[in-house]
């Protein structure tokens, strides 16, 4: 159910100034708007995205007025069907951007994503240039069905690309890249960052490359490898560690498939100590792949065991003490990183 969160209201970001700061969600809207202006093949589909309403999070508020109902399509409640339809449009050369109302509902379209869209090019050169935008993650008291981070399912599935930006600039640049990419891309946007995070965003419509991680904070003593909202928790932990003389490198993966293996291995080899952090369930999560990769290919450089922090192996609980116990945060990252540094 589209339960309310305080992130449900647009707050009319101003645009146009090339040095301006935007919220994370405004950066997403801007990427969509600019790309729709640029490329007539881009269209939007999803539940409740049209009209003055503009979607559960108002990302597409005003879009129907600008681009018309032809390019901003409200769908019935039928994720499997409308993702399949997006695949058909994409095969015909359009570039549909599909909004899941919440990332949690992507499981309702799972079959169409992993079986049809993901495999069409390998099997018969059917290119499927769609993007699914999936508002993911929790920490905002939304319960098991509005807090999920289902990226691992898709990273494991051949043929998809998976993106998870952590900053407004990346949100814009990677969404542009995702739309322009000729493959099915799942774009996990972070609900907790929507309106809590502001940052500089270039006003030009320049795409960032998919598949490139970013060293957000260089450091010597240990590496934190993370993505999405956890980047900011990791940075907070790193600041606190810095006060204690521990110098953390923080790597933001940004793209989860394809993973930037060289960047992961570079930081691991540089510091010799790696802590992988994500909000998704830890067990068999994307962090397991990162840790396994490091263990396999940076073994000789490691001075301590690769550590992982992630959600517990339970559905995301609703009540604050439970959700806080479930989820990594700066405090827990600080503790794990400190132990690692002192190893």
């Amino acid at each position, binding site marked *: *159910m*589209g*339960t*309310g*969160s*305080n992130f*449900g*209201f647009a707050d009319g970001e101003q645009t146009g100034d090339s040095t301006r700061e935007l919220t994370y969600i405004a950066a997403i809207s801007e990427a969509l708007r600019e790309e729709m202006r640029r490329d007539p093949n881009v269209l939007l589909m999803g*539940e*409740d995205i049209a*009209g*003055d*309403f503009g979607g*559960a999070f108002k990302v597409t508020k005003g879009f129907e007025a600008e681009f018309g109902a032809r390019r901003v399509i*409200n769908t*019935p*409640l*039928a*994720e*499997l*069907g409308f993702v399949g339809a997006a695949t058909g449009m994409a095969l015909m050369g359009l570039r549909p951007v599909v909004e899941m*109302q*919440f990332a*949690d*509902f992507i*499981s*309702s379209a799972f079959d169409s994503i992993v079986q049809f869209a993901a495999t069409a090019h390998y099997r018969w050169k059917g290119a499927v240039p769609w993007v699914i935008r999936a508002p993911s993650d929790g920490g*905002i*008291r*939304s*319960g*098991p*069905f*509005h807090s999920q981070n289902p990226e691992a399912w898709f990273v494991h599935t051949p043929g998809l690309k998976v993106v998870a930006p952590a900053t407004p600039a990346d949100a814009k640049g990677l969404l542009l890249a995702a739309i322009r990419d000729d493959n099915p891309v799942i774009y996990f946007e972070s609900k907790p960052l929507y309106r809590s995070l502001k940052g500089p965003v270039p006003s030009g419509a320049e795409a960032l490359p998919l598949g490139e991680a970013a060293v957000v904070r260089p450091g010597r003593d240990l590496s934190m490898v993370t993505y999405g909202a956890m980047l900011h928790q990791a940075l907070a932990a790193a600041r606190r560690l810095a006060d204690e003389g521990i110098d953390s490198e923080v790597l933001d993966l940004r793209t989860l498939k394809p993973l930037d293996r060289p960047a992961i291995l570079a930081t691991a080899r540089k510091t010799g100590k790696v802590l992988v952090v994500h909000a998704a369930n830890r067990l068999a999560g994307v962090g397991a792949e990162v840790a396994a990769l490091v263990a396999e290919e940076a073994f000789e450089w490691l001075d301590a065991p690769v550590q992982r922090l992630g959600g*517990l*192996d*339970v*559905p995301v*609980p*609703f*009540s*604050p*003490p*439970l959700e*806080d*116990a*479930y989820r990594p945060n700066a405090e827990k990252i600080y503790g794990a990183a400190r132990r690692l540094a002192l190893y």
Partner: protein
Amino acid sequence: MLTNEQRLTLYYWMLLTRSFDETMVAMWKQGRGLGGTFSQRGHEAISVGAAYALEPGDVIAPMHRDLGAYLLRGMTAERIFGNLLGRSGGVSAGRDANLHGMGDLGLQIIGFISHLPHSMAVSLGAAMSFVYRSEARVALTFTGDGASSAGLFHETLNMAAVWNAPWVVIVENNLYAYSTPLEQQMKVPAIAERAASYGMAGVSVDGNEVEAVYAVTSAAVERARCGGGPTLIEARTMRMLGHAIHDGAEYVPRSLLESWEKRDPVMTYRARLLEAGVSDEAVLSEIAERVAAEVAEAVARAEADLLPDPATVEAGVYAEG
């Protein structure tokens, strides 16, 4: 035919539901809520009228606007407020949000999940367990106009018909799925008529008339109980507030709401009871006072209840034993 006492009972449950709902909405506006929640304003006649048609052993799988069904089945207002507030005494002990996860097999209630319309298939399975064990029980579930676009709607209706299941589904057609009006959801919005193409009974009812809902549901439930197979009931009503608590529903024409306001299921039933001499102002006021007190006490207890102990976060993922 309903006795006067039964009519007052229906009224009581509708008023309790309404009072709960109004209190909840007010609390959330005051910042005393946690996360989001759903108002069911306008749906009282459906959830109460339908649930009243069941025997105690029947199973019910409500959706997010069926507060009345939970209450009538014996889930206390305190436990439900506790769920809304994430308290340890809430139905899900702080694990699930708002009206989700409020299952209690002791009360024969199957909990709801967000993903629509999964209660349909799951409740069909419950119904098939009755067939399996030759029990004269029925399963009843609810779904929405929006949810009827999902494939699971079709899969479930088709299997229910093929299996001749003792199963009843009520489609609460409240003209909107979130912001999406019926005409963007389906070309022929006569949902009850879809039943025919599955070989299933289908009937449409005024969802603001509690006795009418009760009557068609009773008939469907009793037919199901006697091996007569499943029924699809379309109950027409209007969602009177936003989709969820944060939603102002500016997309709904005000005139539409005004016309439905005149047909408010609780108020019209109250007037009917008076008119028909079933009751008088004194009795109805006494019910209203009782309801207000119950809700106030439920809120007080739920608010005073503890939040769950974080040490329990990993407990209960698996059933043991």
